[in-house]
Each structure stands twice: as structure tokens, then as C-alpha cells.
């Protein structure tokens, strides 16, 4: 099936099997390996990207469902050389260790701050509760997101 989608501002057209998952289209066909795959059951969130303006688990979206839509992945978070405050926050607060969950966590965090610029730590925890990190115990991820919120508020 033909699918045309815009990923990080670039339009791609591909002919794909109907069953191809969006995560595999991104990784294997488009070479955007920043989004990861971590489970068979939509539990881990390593694969989170935005479909239009909403975070989705791209292992649970067929590539063809993204036809005509916009996708944002970790590779599109920075604005050229300047990192998104969320990216800065993760590095600044040690919000990552192995880095495997990080792209998905940052994309959810970016969405959260767009919709709630001053989240409480509980709201951050709630926002990422559909995603798993095996390294950080989440504490520094929460700090990273709060750091980014403060940074964006000019703090």
C-alpha cells in the first residue's frame, strides 16, 4: 500500500505491507533509529512518537494509519543545533542512563509541557506512567521535565 507521511518536516512516500508497524517504517525504512522498540504488548513506551499533535505508541500504529499525517520523532525535537529545553533538562538532571527509553520519555514530556506548562511532579509522573524506564527509577526524569518547565518559564 502507498503511504505518504511527513516526518520531522520531511515528506516521505513509501510502498509498504499493510501490516507494517509505524515503528518499523520509521526505523527500518526511513533509517530514523532514535525511536526504539521494547515490548510486544504496548506497555513500555520506548516507541513513543507524535502522530500529528499527540504522543502515540508507534508499535501500536500501522504505518498506513499515518498516511497523510505528521510524525514527530526524537530526531525532530531539536531546532537545528539548539536543543529543546526538554533535551537540555534530561542531560542536565541525569534523566537518562542507557538512553533507551529517553526518546519516548522526551516526546511525552514535550507534549505535557505544551499542554501544561507548569506541571506538578505528580502530573509529570502521571504523564509518563504508560512508559517504562529500567535505569533511572524515574526520579531524575521527573526532575528533568520540571527543569525544562522552569527554563521555559524563564526561571
Amino acid at each position: 500500500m502507498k503511504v505518504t507521511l511527513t516526518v520531522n518536516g520531511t515528506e516521505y512516500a513509501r510502498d509498504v505491507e499493510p501490516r507494517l508497524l509505524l515503528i518499523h517504517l520509521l526505523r527500518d525504512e526511513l533509517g530514523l533509529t532514535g525511536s526504539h522498540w521494547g515490548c510486544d504488548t504496548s506497555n513500555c513506551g520506548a516507541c513513543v512518537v507524535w502522530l500529528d499533535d499527540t504522543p502515540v505508541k508507534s508499535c501500536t500504529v500501522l504505518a498506513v494509519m499515518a498516511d497523510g499525517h505528521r510524525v514527530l520523532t526524537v530526531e525532530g525535537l531539536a531546532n537545528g543545533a539548539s536543543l529543546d529545553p526538554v533535551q537540555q533538562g534530561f542531560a542536565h538532571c541525569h534523566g537518562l542512563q542507557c538512553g533507551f527509553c529517553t526518546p519516548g520519555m522526551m516526546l511525552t514530556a514535550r507534549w505535557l509541557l505544551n499542554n501544561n506548562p507548569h506541571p506538578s511532579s505528580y502530573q509529570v509522573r502521571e504523564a509518563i506512567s504508560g512508559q517504562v524506564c529500567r535505569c533511572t527509577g524515574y526520579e531524575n526524569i521527573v526532575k528533568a521535565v520540571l527543569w525544562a518547565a522552569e527554563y521555559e518559564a524563564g526561571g
Partner: protein
Amino acid sequence: MTGPGVAGQETGAYGAIPRKEDARFVRGQGTFVDDISLPGMLHGAILRSPLAHARIISVDASAALAHPKVEAVLTGADLAGRGLAWMPTLSADVQAVLATDKVRFQGQEVAFVVAQDRYAARDALELIAVEYEPLPPLIDARTALAQDAPLVRDDVPGRADNRVFDWNAGDKTATDAVFATAEVRVGCDMVYPRSHPAPLETCGIVAASDAVTGRLTVWSTSQAPHAHRTLYSVITGLPEHKIRIVSPDIGGGFGSKVPVYPGYLCAIVASMITGRPVKWVEDRSENLMSTAFARDYHMHGEIAATADGRILGVRARVLADHGAFNATAQPAKYPAGFFHIFTGSYDLQAAFCEVTGVYTNKAPGGVAYSCSFRVTEAVYLVERLVDLLARELGMDPAQLRMRNLLRPEQFPYTCPTGWQYDSGDYPRAFALALDLAGYQGLRREQAERRARGEYMGIGISFFTEGVGAGPRAHMDILGLGMADGADLRVHPTGKVVLAISVQTQGQGHETTFAQLVAHELGLTPDDVEVVHGDTDRTPFGLGTYGSRSTPVSGAAAVLAARKVRDRARLVAAATLELSPDDLEWLDGKWRVRGDPDRGAGIAEIAMAAHSSLELPDGVEGHLDASAVYNPPNLTFPFGAYICVTDVDPATGEVTVRRFIAVDDCGVRINPMIVEGQVHRGLADGIGMALMQAIAFDENGNCLGGSFMDYLLPTALECPSPELGATVTPSPHHPVGAKGIGESATVGSPPAVVNSVVDALAPFGVRHADMPLTPANVWRAIQGRPVRPDLAVS
């Protein structure tokens, strides 16, 4: 002790600096195994046994081979033809690569398909017809030694039962004598359930065999690339210098990426057969069902004490479920790992433990998941026993611990089972934890809540672990001594490249090791590039696990740097036309004694060492150096943890309200990274104590084969931890550091369980096994035994 890096002296390049590796990770530019794509690369998939125990009658792959996108299919018979159907494990046993005679656990590898893409490889698995003759499975380890138990390992000639080993440590006679006369004795059966490390990245490999050069290049999720290279050479017969193992970025390991797995070998053989690179990446259920599990210890522990609360001795009998193959990864001399450190942190007279390992029809493994080679099980046992003793004596568990902790003046301390603890100030760390927790206030609050019918628990754990394996006289894996090398190159401009034998799975080696070397040489961490995870570019060493990177490889890096510094002194003396004795190392430079403004730093000296300067006799040019570090002893980090929980008696739900953790890992190179390691381990403890378990039904079906069933803590279950630190340097490590990577995973589960049991004390609950899921807590309240298979609730 003296020297750079010792607490209280100069801080130099140490400190909480951001990590170098983050620049690529936050941009999504890490390179994990599954990110690697080579021209012409094929994809492998494994057909696994649906049964726990069955004889294989036939395997027919003809339909799969006819699939238009399938390039090859490997079966056990194919591998047997190459002498590769079985491979050695890390524990002197063998493990089937692809089953030939029987399948021995659900999920065991039966056939390997190689196809043009990953979807086609999966499709073709369905086209392989396997005929099985089901056999009764052995699932309950407690029945493994019964007369009529099914025999798991009939492949081994002469084997008549399921016993893997019998092993003991300590002095039985002395211990029995102590118990015979003790005023108080308390015992308890406890199970440390089977769990799985479940790093977020599963295991995988890209194998590329080049028939022309004879070289094999492997990118794999390996915590021990050098050991893997040697193993692959031994297994396949390929000359070792023709094998290159690359561990690229690794998405967490926690011990599960130490062994060689059948899928790796299948990919290697498939690449040799097809002449093309072959990638194999397991899916999550394969990961949870077949790669190294952890724990699975059935323990009976006893503690003896005086009536006024002086602990006299401990003893334990353990039944260890090793699964179908003995594939544990620990120093060969210790089949139960370091379990015999179960005397814990206490000053006691005698101890004895005996461990029997058995085969069952379950996945192999046992030593994984940040366990410090089974110190997890040991700490859990002794910390539960101390709480049980406190209950028996009617004493506060904090007071009982404080009364019995080893005192600072007893170090170095040799425990009754033979470990020599290098250093410690236990009462100081414990007092700090009690203070941070506001312990007395918590007890008052608990009493008030109890009066209102609310169930709040306060759980304490004090742990000691031995990490940094290890002294080569006692420790080897497959005959390879546990030393690690470091190579240091100093470029003419004074920039440095450090090549190390260990590699990071998230621990931040690129930063910490740069700090270690920069600190010794008066450089900044940015001046040091750390090369790791590539056997062609790094010196030999056994890898990252058992919290050994900083204790062993870190020491090698420091020693190499000190060699550089010593040589630099000679070169500096030559440039200044002085005697080396006239120079002293001060503030990162060799300076003239009494005239500290005159001197030279490493950058100037490096340029001189590469120049036409005439060097003194016996001084080679350049400043490069290397070192191999053979540790004289393990390092013994310790800590005091306090966990506060609230339990809803109606639902059995446990909420972890607070977690206070004081760790002493000696000198901290990068405290930010150290704290991050602790954060992770506390989450592990909450996970293991409250939700994670790999259980089986009576037919051997794995009940924890996906993240729907094997529950991991999320941000909502993990509290914001409250950390504290004390610093007691290791006297034998070059900078006084100890390992930290596993401390919190080792120390935190008993704190959580002690807390929940404390909360349930009004119900008369004395002990309840993990995982303390709502269903199991509810059962404990009802006075019914817990059931590990009720992990899912």
C-alpha cells in the same frame, strides 16, 4: 591513606558533572544493536518450544525453506553436523543451542530461520513442523530430588538425578554449638522468587562473517565483549584474533547480557552459511522466557541470639532452582555466588550455610539482575531474620541492628564464612539514615495510625556487599582470571585516549573514567576520550557486571595514568634540567619544590616527550602507558535503607510513601551518577518486593512472559527517594572507591518487605513472601500462604 581522590583532599576532576554520552542520546543518535543495518543483511528468528518438557520426534523445515524470502533454516540436526548443537555455559555445564533430543523448558530454541526481512522470518516460523512427545515436566524445585522426579538432564551420561551441586560455607560444628545453647532461636522459610532483569533493550546481535579474510565481526548486546570473543573462539574453532566483538550502545544489562545465548551462535553460524550479515533481535516474550532469569532461591534461615538481643549466629539451607541448564555466570569456585556473605553487617560468632542446586524444566540462568553474585538473596535472608528476631524479642528493629552492627574498629573484618570486609563505619551510616527518616517520629505516627485502624509500615535494611570481582587467586570465569586492562595514549598536545576493557550499559563510563584519568593527570574530563566496547580497540578484561567497573577497571585506568605521570616527571625534569627528585606533583602539574611557579603540566610534557629533546637513559619517548589490575580483595560497599509503606487492608494494595537510602561506596567519582545508580536499584527493590515474578503453572507454562504479566514499576509506584551518603574509602583501591551499581538492588527488597510485614503486624503476620501484590497481601492478612503465581492481579 593518601593521594588524589581521597575524601577530604583535593577534588580535582571529580564531581557531579553532566555525562559526555548524553549528547548523542538526547538527539536519538545512540547506536544500539538493532540500529545497525549492513548491506545485504538478513534477519533471523527463533522457533521456540511451546512445551516445558518433551522429546523431539521430528523437525520438518521444508515448507519454511520453500518460502520465497527464506534464505536458510537451521535445526538442531544441522548444528550437530557442525558440532555446535551444544555449547559450554559459564558454569562448566553445557546448554543446547538448538534442541536435538529433548526440549527442557518452555521457550527453548528449536530452529532458526534466516529471511530477507524480519516479518518474513517470523512468518516462516509458522511453516516449521515439529512433532513432540510430551514428557512430565519438573516445575517445583522442592520435588526435584524426589525418587520419581522426571530426569531433566538425561543428555549427561550416568546422571541419575537432578542435583547440580551441593555446596556449603562456614563452620557447621561451631554454628550448631552456638544454636544449641542460644537463649533465643528464630527460623523462617522464605522464597526469593524468580525474577527477570528485563532491560528495556532486549538481546540482539548482528553477525558478519567474511569468508575471504576469515574474520568474524559481531555487534551484540554484550556486557563482556572480551570474554565473548574467547568463548566464540573456543566454541566455533575460529582463531581468536580473527574475531571482533563490538558492544555498541547497550540499553541496560543488569547482568542479563553477560552470557552467550543460543540466538547469538545461530546468527553467527547463519552468517557463515549464507555469507551475509545476519541480525537477530529477540522480542520481549523471548527475552522474559529464555534469557537469564534471576534468584529463585528457596531458603530456610535461622538466627540465634541472647535474650537481651545479642546476635550469635545464623545458618541457612537453600534449594537453588537453576533451570534446565546450569548457566549461571559467577566466579567458578562459588556455585552459589557470594551467598555466603549472609552473615551481613553483624558481629556474630558463627555461621553456616548449605546450598543445593537443582535442575528443573525452566529457563536457565540465576545470577543476574544486579545481584552482586547472589548477595541479594543473602541480604534478604539475614535482614528478614533480624526483623523476625526483633519481633520475637519485642525489640525495636533499629535498636536491635544498632546493637549488633560491626564497629568501625573491627575493620578489616573477617566474617565467619571467610570474607574480609575492607572498611566500614556502619553505625555512622545507620544513624544518618534514622535521622533522615525521623525514625522516632515515624514510630509515633505509626502508633497513632494503628490506633485509628490504619496500617503503616516502617522497614529497615542494613546491607554489606562484596563487589569488584576479583582476586585472580580465587576468582575466574571459565578459567579466565578476573583482572582488567587499561591502555592510555597521550597525544603530543596532551589530549588523552583511554581504552578500557569494560563498557557501559548506562552507567556512564565515558564520563566517570574520563574523570578518573583527568584527575590523575591534571586535565579536564573533556581532554580524555574513553574507548570501550570494541575488542579490536581495547585491552582484555572481563567486562561490566557485579559492580566491578570502578573497583577493577577504574583501578587499572588510574594505575595507567599514574605510570604516565611518573614518566612525565622524568621528561619534565629533563626539560627543566633538574633531577626528578626536585619535582613534586601539585595542583595538576609537576612543579619545582620550593618554587611552585616553575613546572610543567601534562600537555607541555607530552609535547616534549614527542620532541627531539634528549631524554635521560632508560626513558622511552612518548607518555603512553598501560596497566592490568588484579584486585587484592573485593570492595565492600554498605548502606542503610528505610522504607515507609501504607497498606490498604481491604484491597491489599501497598503504597511506598518514602524511601530513605544512605549509601557508602567509598570515594564518589561522580556523585550524580552514583545517585542515579541508587535511584535505579530502589525502583528494582520496589518492583521485586511488590510486583515482579516469573511464575509457572504446573505444566511449566511461563506466567511472566510479557509486560502485561511481568509487572514493572512505573513512575507512579516509585517514590521520590531521599538519599544520604557517608564516605569510608576502600583501603586497597587506588582512589578509595567501591562499587555502587548493585547496592540498592541488593539492599532495598528486604526494606520493602520488612515494611509491609511491619504494617501487617496487627494481623499477626510474621512473614510473607514476595511479590507482595495486592492479592498476596490480602492472603497474608487472611492467614493464607502467598502464591507467586498470583503475581498478576
